[in-house]
């Protein structure tokens, strides 16, 4: 419960906001209210008091019966959601909307660095993102692409500038995955939030498969991959 320190009230203060600054209903004039407020608070000590009680008391003290009746009638005019509605009243959003919003957000993010990407690359990237977020293929418990992950991906791609484009995937948590494959040599990079990446290389060595994995900052990705001849994946 929110608490506020209430100091002595003074007659003559013009407009005062109580509670949420956006809540106009809480804007009160203190002119002529001293008696009503004193009555409302005679049981309470000045000092820290629950804001909820403060608001209720001020509301009751400040608004006439006529105003409160009008407010109730306005509230009643709002149409409540149907009980049969598929949308949960608390934060529910249809799947298609969620997926659309997620891809739209990362496309907007891309627009902020569009000057560093070739148009064709960008167009293809958007098509891949749309394909990943096809509602018909969507795994219900998965998260759509996370902006923070995509921001990490953009940083990596603009620095590495691969001539060969990766195939894209998405983890359960909505982190973008980029995969390059050259016959049996594989590089898979998962782009995490906060400029982190985790990567794994798989390649055959003396007829035995070898897997090398790591996690690093995106700024060190190129340097980290350098010993593994990344040009086999990145060059055309």
């Amino acid at each position, binding site marked *: 419960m929110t608490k506020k320190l209430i100091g002595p009230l003074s007659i003559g203060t013009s407009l005062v906001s109580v509670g949420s600054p956006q809540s106009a209903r809480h804007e009160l004039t203190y002119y002529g209210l001293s008696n009503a407020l004193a009555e409302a608070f005679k049981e309470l000590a000045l000092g820290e008091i629950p804001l909820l009680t403060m608001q209720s008391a001020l509301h009751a003290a400040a608004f006439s019966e006529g105003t409160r009746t009008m407010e109730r009638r306005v509230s009643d005019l709002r149409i409540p959601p149907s009980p049969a509605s598929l949308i949960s009243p608390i934060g529910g959003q249809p799947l298609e909307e969620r997926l659309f919003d997620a891809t739209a957000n990362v496309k907007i993010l891309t627009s902020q660095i569009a000057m560093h990407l070739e148009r064709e690359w960008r167009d293809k990237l958007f098509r891949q993102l749309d394909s990943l977020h*096809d509602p018909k*293929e*969507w*795994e219900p418990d998965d998260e759509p692409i996370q902006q923070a992950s995509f921001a990490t991906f953009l940083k990596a791609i603009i620095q590495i500038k691969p001539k060969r484009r990766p*195939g*894209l*995937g998405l983890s359960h948590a909505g982190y973008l995955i980029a*995969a390059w494959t050259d016959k049996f040599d594989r590089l898979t990079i998962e782009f995490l939030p906060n400029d982190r990446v985790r990567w794994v290389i798989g390649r055959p060595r003396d007829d035995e*498969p070898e*897997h090398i994995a790591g996690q690093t900052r995106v700024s060190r990705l190129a340097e980290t991959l350098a010993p593994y001849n990344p040009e086999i994946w990145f060059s055309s």
Partner: protein
Amino acid sequence: MISKGSNLPDEDHVMRYVPWTKLRRDENEHVIGFLPQAFELREEEQSLSLNWLEYFSGDRNQRIRESANMFRGIRKVGAKSAYGIGNVRHIKEVCDSNGARVRIVYEPDHENRAHSGIRGLPRDDLSLLDALATQAFVELVRDAEV
């Protein structure tokens, strides 16, 4: 028939559903395998969910078909999705050589009598996941082909 909680026979096979977002693709969107993350446990999961192929009867193709039908009956299956198939012994060997001692256990539930799981998979081991994707689940079958 083995009982719930028992290890699946080494000579048998398991099938994992892999959705479109977890398939490995080339730059032209052609499917070429599985991403390591196709075998990653979700936060709330204790075992990697699979179907026991030999639960179903018939030849191999019939079993694959029945298993796919089971998946389709209990969950959403995307048209572009695929299934990874691997031998129980081989999966355990791959895990072992990557430092993980796992059990592949029969875990039927009321919806799916063929349900099984890989228990003891470490989390966040990307090398192991890559090994599962490339060496353990060696067969890829597209849902559209079943």
